[in-house]
């Protein structure tokens, strides 16, 4: 069914999605949906130990299985110089263990078989002998002198230290703290969690020996970056590598890096001469792919007795797992954590981040963290509430007193960020109105008289997204600028090719809307191509909410270039000078005579025709752009969460959640709201139930959806959304990006609400997840430590 001309939609606004047509019919193309001729299946054998010497591997029985085509061990990879590959953070990662295993679930061997069932059977036939070693599990003890050294593969390494990093002015900050009337200190843990998209990670590698072309179907969020990395690591010619990223069943930062399974699929394909598919199961996903967070933050805030914030100080121990494999810009090993100063006006701040190795899976940057901004926003919003607790001040009032004012923008923060635009008090005010905040406080007071626990929690966050300016931001030497290519066909339809890859954000719809808004071509007439490195421009991919700020900007600039060229051609067609042309959404008319005009479709046809064009103007109607963002963009929001807590069981019910977001220009409000809804559910998940903990032997306790609990529709309230719109002054269409905002801002709102409910007990803080057990224990005055196994 096609859309009639009267229904043709142009530009921004609520618009149903093009991609839905295939998803609703079950015709999506996710990586496990592909079946190539002759395709084999791979499976990974994983370590049951967190730390152990690899004594021997006997693969003979597996090799003898009638359906097994190849078995790969670390020894074989060593001959190919592929046992170790560079990580995203200038470390190395083991593809298959050679000397030791360093985390529970680490890859030890790979079988390639005729079908996935046989591959799984063959794993049982591999005999591995381990010599267990004491593991390092507690990140706070990783640098103890007697801690076992995990990375003895690094020459001269005698400890588990990775890096030290700091930002801000230490001396100035310490001076403010020394003088301050009020200092509140709180150790705050953001525990290890996992993005857990419903589709696991996977790839099909197909090495064509005749053409020398390696095609990899992979649900990666960064197809071009992968391609370049494979070229560098495997020594394969880059123009002979094609990465096809098809439909992705959720990314959330889980699908950014190159996992050992992908490399093994490539090696398997080279060895067997056939395509090899490897798709991990859920246990593998939770136990070995990129986790998120795991920041132990000693946080302090200095203020006046009247509630004016003066300074913030945070010292972080960052648990990176067994290899440093965080996807973040080279100059920022702790990502953008130094935006921890948050949304408030005060002159002094300082932070240190110390990265350590532990015997756990590698990762840390994932799950919509915006490069560690989730950690930063949580720390500041929790400590502000702790300050409110100590001052016995309403948390909304305390925030309102300290929020940056509109006149202060663009605002240079104490740690060097330049926030582009914002009206923070208006945003918080709006959230409080929607929530009927004063009524809620009255209700709470009444309930407290009766011993009923109700909590109201706030969170005001500032994000920095859209990485980023090339001169400051690169990942493994690849600058974070992205390209876009726009072609308008002779009949006036268009195709735009982009470097970012959608995992549900609706790029096929929204990017068409950007082109439509600027060119006036109906968005149904614009095709969006993404995901295949053979036919899209280079870029660093989708994560850190960068699609709209970077790629969206590239598309907008390319569209503007097309319109500029179309203007010239229209002027030539109508035989008037360029200054006499007015442009209004795809119509080029003569100033003062609106009856004389050309549509962009007519211009497109003429551009491909024999008409003589002015000097220096080439034919066709195409444009390209590589957009180097001048700055990040800074979306923000005010969130309010209302909970009811059962004091005897500790069970928490989220009654209401109000979210007012400002992401600048909203290309498609329906999609923006959907992004926010999803992130808010993440907050409930992390605040109340999600955690990957480890026991003292290093066993991962979050390796299934039975253990790693995700929120269902019953835990989520009906989200109440509001908006303010403060465009970004430096973005071509004023848009800021919104993909991670809600995940960044919501956990603090939920935790603050629960702590607010428990205020009658005199408790100020407990670490996530606030399960019934944790809430009960907190009421007893003995909160649990949540990164380790629960003990008596």
């Amino acid at each position, binding site marked *: 069914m096609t859309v009639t001309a009267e229904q043709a939609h142009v530009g921004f606004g609520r618009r*149903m999605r093009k991609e839905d047509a295939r998803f609703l019919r079950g015709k999506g193309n996710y990586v496990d949906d592909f079946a190539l001729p002759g395709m084999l299946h791979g499976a990974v054998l994983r370590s049951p130990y967190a730390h152990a010497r690899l004594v021997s591997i006997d693969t003979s029985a597996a090799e003898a299985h009638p359906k097994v085509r190849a078995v790969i061990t670390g020894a074989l990879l060593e001959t190919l110089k592929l046992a170790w590959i560079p990580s995203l953070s200038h470390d190395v990662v083991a593809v298959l263990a050679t000397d030791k295993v360093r985390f529970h679930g680490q890859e030890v061997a790979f079988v390639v078989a005729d079908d996935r069932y046989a591959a799984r059977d063959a794993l049982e036939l591999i005999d591995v002998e381990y010599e267990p070693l004491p593991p390092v599990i507690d990140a706070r003890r990783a640098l103890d002198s007697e801690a076992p050294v995990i990375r003895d593969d690094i020459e001269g390494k005698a400890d588990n230290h990775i890096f030290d990093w700091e930002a801000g002015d230490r001396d100035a900050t310490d001076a403010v703290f020394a003088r301050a009337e009020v200092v509140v200190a709180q150790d705050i843990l953001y525990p290890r969690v996992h993005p857990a998209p419903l589709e696991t990670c996977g790839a099909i590698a197909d090495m064509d020996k005749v053409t020398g072309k390696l095609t990899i179907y992979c649900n990666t969020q960064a197809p071009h970056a992968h391609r370049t990395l494979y070229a560098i690591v495997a020594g394969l010619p880059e123009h002979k590598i094609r990465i096809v990223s098809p439909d992705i069943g959720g990314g*959330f930062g889980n699908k950014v890096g190159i996992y050992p399974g992908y490399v093994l699929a490539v090696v398997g394909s080279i060895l067997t001469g056939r395509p090899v598919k490897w798709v991990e199961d859920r246990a593998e996903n939770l136990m070995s792919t990129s986790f998120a967070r795991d920041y132990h933050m000693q946080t302090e805030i200095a203020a006046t007795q009247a509630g004016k914030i003066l300074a913030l100080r945070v010292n972080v121990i960052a648990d990176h797992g067994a290899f440093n494999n965080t996807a973040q810009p080279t100059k920022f090993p702790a990502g953008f954590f130094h935006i921890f100063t948050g949304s408030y006006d005060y002159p002094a701040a300082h932070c240190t981040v110390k990265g350590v190795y532990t015997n756990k899976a590698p990762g840390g940057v994932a799950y919509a963290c915006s490069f560690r901004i989730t950690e930063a926003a949580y720390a500041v919003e929790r400590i502000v509430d702790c300050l409110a607790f100590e001052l016995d001040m309403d948390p909304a009032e305390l925030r309102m007193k300290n929020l940056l004012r509109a006149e202060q923008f663009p605002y240079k923060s104490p740690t060097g960020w330049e926030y582009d635009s914002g009206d923070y008090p208006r945003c918080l005010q709006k959230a409080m109105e929607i929530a009927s905040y004063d009524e809620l406080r009255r209700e709470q007071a009444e309930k407290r008289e009766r011993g009923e626990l109700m909590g109201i929690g706030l969170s005001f966050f500032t994000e920095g997204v859209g990485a980023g300016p090339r001169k400051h931001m690169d990942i493994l030497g690849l600058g974070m600028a992205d390209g876009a290519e726009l072609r308008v066909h002779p009949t006036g339809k268009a195709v735009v090719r982009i470097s970012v890859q959608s995992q549900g954000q609706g790029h096929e719809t929204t990017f068409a809307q950007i082109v439509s808004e600027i060119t006036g071509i109906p968005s149904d007439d614009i095709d969006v191509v993404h995901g295949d490195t053979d036919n899209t421009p280079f870029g660093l991919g989708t994560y850190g909410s960068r699609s709209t700020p970077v790629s969206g900007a590239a598309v907008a600039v390319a569209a503007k270039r097309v319109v500029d060229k179309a203007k010239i051609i229209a002027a030539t067609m109508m035989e008037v000078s360029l200054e006499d042309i007015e442009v209004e959404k795809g119509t080029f008319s003569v100033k003062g005579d609106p009856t004389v005009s050309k549509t962009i479709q007519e211009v497109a046809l003429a551009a491909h025709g024999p008409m003589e064009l002015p000097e220096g103007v080439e034919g066709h109607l195409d444009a390209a752009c590589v957009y180097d963002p001048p700055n990040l963009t800074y979306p923000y929001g005010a969130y309010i969460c209302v909970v009811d807590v059962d004091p005897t069981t500790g069970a928490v019910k989220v009654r209401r959640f109000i979210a007012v977001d400002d992401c600048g220009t909203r290309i498609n409000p329906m999609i923006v709201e959907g992004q926010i809804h999803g992130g808010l559910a993440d907050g409930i998940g992390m605040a109340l139930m999600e955690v990957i903990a480890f026991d003292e032997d290093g066993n991962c306790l979050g390796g299934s959806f039975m253990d790693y609990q995700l929120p269902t529709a019953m835990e989520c309230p009906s989200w109440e959304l509001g908006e303010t719109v403060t465009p970004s002054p430096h973005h071509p269409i004023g848009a800021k990006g919104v993909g991670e905002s809600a995940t960044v801002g919501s956990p603090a709102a939920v935790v603050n609400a629960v702590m607010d409910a428990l205020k009658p007990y005199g408790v100020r803080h407990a670490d996530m997840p606030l399960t019934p057990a944790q809430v009960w224990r907190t009421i007893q005055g003995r909160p649990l430590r949540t990164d380790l196994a629960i003990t008596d």
Partner: protein
Amino acid sequence: MQVTVKVNGEEYTGEIEPRLLLVHFLRDELGLTGTHWGCDTSNCGVCVVQVDGTPVKSCTMLAAMASGHEVLTVEGLEQNGELDPIQQGFMTEHGLQCGFCTPGMMLTARWLLDANPNPSDAEIREAISGNLCRCTGYENIVRAIHWAADHPRVAEPEEVAAS
């Protein structure tokens, strides 16, 4: 062993290992890849199909157990080129983002509306509590199901994008 399963109204016979799970039978043997899989412990629900009219997690059923029974997958929701009201509701209300949970979610929703044509918010949320979603926060899924309940017949689809 041989199994015969009626899927979306058509009978299929296949020679399979007894251990073949229904989800793999549908995806790999019959090429109906609209049904997905997402976990190891029967929690996530992306594999939901209808067996004899009731939703079942197809990752926790053997193809052998489905032999002699009728299965409805997402590919069978559209009838004579017209989307089921559930599908239209999901499109109209933006009830899907990445689309991975959507087939299972829609089949559970279809079953709910067949049994309870006008469910409340709470009844909807309980009915889909065995179907996880990581993208939507469930809000628009609930709206989509209400939309389908309010539009039980396929009338003039207003703005359905071309396939």
